[in-house]
């Protein structure tokens, strides 16, 4: 993929996230404070605008542009988490071609950035529980499109599995045991993001 192709996919990610605002609101109302949809909408609409205007010289540039906009505009815990995720992904992508290995590398750097930022770990009922299986699934693939599709499928399964977990981090901690039975809002967001990224539109 070229920098322009990556940019096009990330614009589609923005559209997918904006279209999911209500679903994310409902998910956060169930176990958090109900602001995840609003925050993500704020972040991804700022990101959409930034992507449309900023140049993409490397395949990492669009990820960085997206990440910075979310970091700056989304607010809440998820603004920092998803912003750090995308700026983290940008780091290894200094070249002009995105391949399967680069994609997997980028996901790993995104994971590292999120963990450095927030200190959460697998099983805490966060977006990490969608991200970690996505990385594992991408790792086996040599074709970029196949890697993206595998990551998306694994993220969706991972997000579904968060319903059985108890929140231990962030505002959802509010509910403790009461959070069981509901999927984590941030994990849902990550699965929507990876699904849109994998869609050859």
């Amino acid at each position, binding site marked *: 993929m070229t920098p322009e192709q990556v940019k096009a996919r990330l614009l589609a990610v923005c559209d997918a996230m904006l279209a999911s605002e209500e679903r994310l609101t409902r998910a956060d109302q169930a176990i958090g404070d109900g602001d995840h949809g609003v925050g993500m909408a704020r972040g991804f609409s700022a990101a959409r605008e930034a992507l449309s205007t900023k140049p993409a010289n490397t395949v990492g540039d669009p990820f960085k542009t997206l990440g910075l906009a979310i970091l700056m505009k989304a607010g809440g815990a998820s603004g920092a988490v998803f912003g750090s995720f995308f700026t983290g992904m940008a780091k290894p992508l200094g070249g002009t071609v995105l391949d399967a290995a680069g994609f997997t590398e980028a996901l790993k750097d995104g994971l590292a950035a999120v963990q450095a930022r927030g200190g959460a770990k697998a099983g805490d009922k966060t977006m990490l529980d969608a991200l970690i299986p996505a990385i594992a699934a991408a790792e086996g693939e040599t074709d970029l499109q196949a890697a993206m599709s595998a990551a998306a499928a694994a993220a969706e399964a991972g997000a579904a599995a968060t319903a059985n977990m108890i929140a231990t981090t962030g505002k959802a901690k*509010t509910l403790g045991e009461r959070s069981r039975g509901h999927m984590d809002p941030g994990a849902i967001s990550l699965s929507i993001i990876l699904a849109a990224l994998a869609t050859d539109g």
Partner: protein
Amino acid sequence: MARVKKIINAIPDLVPEVLEGLVLASHGDLRKLDGADAVVRNHIPDGKVALLIGGGSGHEPMYTCYVGKGLADGSVAGNVFAAPTPDIVLDATRAVNRGKGVIFLYGNYAGDNMNFDIAAELAAAEDIAVETIRIADDVVTPERRERRGIGGAFYVVKCAGAICDETTSLAEAAELIRHAEASVRSIGVAVSAGSLPQTGMPTFVLGDDEIEIGMGAHGEPGVERRNLMSANALAEEMTRLVVADLPFRTGDEVALMLNNLGATTMMELLIVNRRVRQILADLGIRVHRSDIGPFFTSQEMAGFSLSLMKLDANLKRWLDAPVRSPAYRQ
């Protein structure tokens, strides 16, 4: 369930309108930053270590109303119960910095920690030195590092304001504020829920006869749900938990705060004060000053928090130093 009625205009204007109203109530002391939900003092002396506080909105007067002479130099406001974004924190950091660097002082919550940290990194890239102090006074969580910031935050902000007025080194100011922060312990009790203005819905539900000792400012879990008990019994249990934590000992001198979370009456707080003072007297703990009222609210939550700050000569001087802010004069 009927929506809780709130006297507001359009939801997207909520926080900016609050800040505009605050600036007007400051009579020239404060201004709002253009396009950012932050207020800063108009007259910050050159060479002063700057103090920036903030967090989610909805806890007023904390944080935004505590900007002024002898208090903070600026405050950033997130949406209700949501951390502010790094760009606003960075804008405010630039606006308050007078060349000596900026103290970030805020409650220890995941969202706030991450967003302020990002802003600190961005500030460092612009050669603005930042020191971060997180307020973690709620005794409910066993690990100090994981504790939440609740009512006792007012005492830390009050002392930090005085410290930043008398100290010209960022590192020294940070060290003194850390000492102030380490001297405060608090616990809350929730009697009924507050509601989010965005949704009009209560943020948690308690039974008709239930209270939750230790519940956090956004409804985070506490020690346990209990039946409503007498003011005396509640005062005894909460005082015991706070005293045991530092621990406070015979001969200590303290400041005592009973912070109204919103809808509790002053009558109730005075009745609780009576019993807390009896218990402290029995323990040989002297009370230097009392602060009873709404200092750190959670919308119209009913309940209160009890805070003790262990005092020394410095902390006494800093607590008692004069201040002028829209919400607090002394």
